[in-house]
């Protein structure tokens, strides 16, 4: 034990450097959001308080952006689940011509640098008048969610124990009943993970919204860009950051409870 303690200077060094590099910027934002007066070069703000929270929460553009982002993320997630979950069931369980080819076609999402891909889509959308259009944004964001929503549930459907399903059929359960009582409970965690990841990723999606949606579609990340570029009151951006972080925070809690680091890596990478 003492040997380990003595040898672990590397661990402490890594921990110290990471603590500064990862936490300092984030703690800084948190402090700013509860600050009323912080004049350079004081290390501690002169006055803490909630005054700016009222201002930010009362702003119309903030509330509108939150509503837009939430509904955008909800619509994209719902549509994605609607078209992808049946597809992932088919990929996992059915045999049809071109199955492998179609399955691997989802990899093309990774085969191009994303932003270049969005540019090529945008050049087509300009011709179709879909620039600045809410549904144009929905359509492109939908494409980036396909990978999560098809691939993650497919593994789950494949891992369902077929013998349990057959046993249920043998004692007279209808196919629907089997699906609902045997298959569903086993794939539900994977589907929940896919839905959550899709929702959170879409909520923070900035590039499609900025390229295709702006200026008509105003999401929270786009409001944040505006705050960064032209807002003089530092606290507004800090408070919006904290508000904006809520979905990620919820995902973090869920991920900590249900996923190990490995599963997390697979889900994101």
């Amino acid at each position, binding site marked *: 034990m003492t040997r*380990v303690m003595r040898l*672990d200077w590397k*661990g*402490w060094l890594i*921990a110290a450097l*990471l*603590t500064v*590099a*990862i936490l300092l*910027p*984030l703690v*800084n*934002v948190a402090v700013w959001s509860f600050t009323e007066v912080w004049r350079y*070069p*004081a*290390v501690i703000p002169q006055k803490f308080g909630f005054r700016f929270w009222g201002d930010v929460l009362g702003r119309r553009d903030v509330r509108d952006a939150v509503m837009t982002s939430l509904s955008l993320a909800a619509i994209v997630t719902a549509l994605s689940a609607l078209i*992808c979950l*049946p*597809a992932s069931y*088919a*990929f996992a369980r059915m*045999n*049809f011509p071109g*199955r492998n080819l*179609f399955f*691997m*076609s*989802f990899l*093309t*999402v*990774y*085969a*191009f*640098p*994303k*932003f*270049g*891909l969005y*540019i*090529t*889509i945008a050049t*087509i959308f300009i011709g179709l008048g879909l620039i600045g259009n809410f549904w144009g944004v929905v359509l492109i964001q939908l494409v980036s969610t*396909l990978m999560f929503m098809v691939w993650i549930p497919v*593994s789950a459907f494949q891992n369902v124990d077929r013998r349990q399903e057959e046993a249920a059929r043998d004692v007279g359960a209808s196919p629907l009943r089997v699906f609902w009582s045997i298959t569903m409970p086993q794939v539900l965690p994977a589907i929940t993970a896919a839905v959550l990841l899709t929702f959170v990723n879409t909520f923070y999606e900035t*590039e499609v919204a900025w*390229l295709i949606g702006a200026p008509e579609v105003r999401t929270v*990340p786009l409001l944040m860009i505006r705050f*960064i570029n032209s807002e003089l009151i530092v606290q507004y*951006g*800090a408070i919006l*950051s904290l508000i904006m*972080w809520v979905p*990620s925070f919820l*995902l973090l809690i869920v*991920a900590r409870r249900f996923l190990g*680091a490995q599963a*997390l*890596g*697979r889900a994101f*990478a």
Partner: protein
Amino acid sequence: MSTVEAATAAVKRRHVDGRGLIGLLLVAAPVTLIGALILWPVSVSVFDTLTVRGPDGRHFSLESYRFFFSDGFSLRNLWLTIQVAAICTVLLLVISLPIALYLRFSETRLAGYIQALALFPLFVPSILLAYALIRTLGPNGTVDILLTAVGLPKIPSPYLTPWGPIIGLVWDNLPLTLLIILAGLSNVSRASIDAARDVGAGSFAVLWYIVLPRIRGTLLVAASFIILGLFSAFTLPYLLGPAVPEMMGPFMRRTIIEVDDPLQARTQAVVTFMICALFAMFYVRSVARTRREQSS
């Protein structure tokens, strides 16, 4: 008897055919989306940038690429992107490797803390990161405050220089790079390292002769992943980087939205596709392989 068998076989076949059709119908929507919003736009862009409209229809021409590769402004932006991508890749590998090695071969509670910290950026959206870095490293930011407090000179702020996006992108990509390398390190056994140590190999020799040869493939995949990400980076270069020269992401957006030149924007996009093609292939192949291993 044989007619009954034939009949059941026919029923079964029809059943399979029916399921085949249903299967196709079920996957139709997402596959169509892939076709319509990835394959189609990319093909159109490649085709349109390689042809010009003449009096007798379209014919082959490299004009738009000739423009791109003779335009000093475009070239400077491309060069900046390549440089930033190279620097970020090296930095990420150099930072992730020691952390991954530490996490792989120690079981202390400190390792849990390090892993949690290193993976934390997964839960920080890049737009929030951009804001946090501006407040921390920008002029009169927290780092300046802390340095002034202990009587040191201010830092030359990386904000609005190429180092702004580099710091941001390294921060942002650290968790996934680390996870890729950790997955690769699971192939390196502790026994092989202990054996090398026993015959007197130093840390560097162990790293160079035992660890690196076994994770060469992993490092290549990690590098490919990073480079693909760098060429498609937009938010961080746009908010943290310099206006001139700018990275390909912001440059493409400006070309299409502000300069209103879709053809050049497409050319720029296809150029990034070309540069990334090899890395994309490595990365896609590794994702496909992981997937096959999981399902088998």
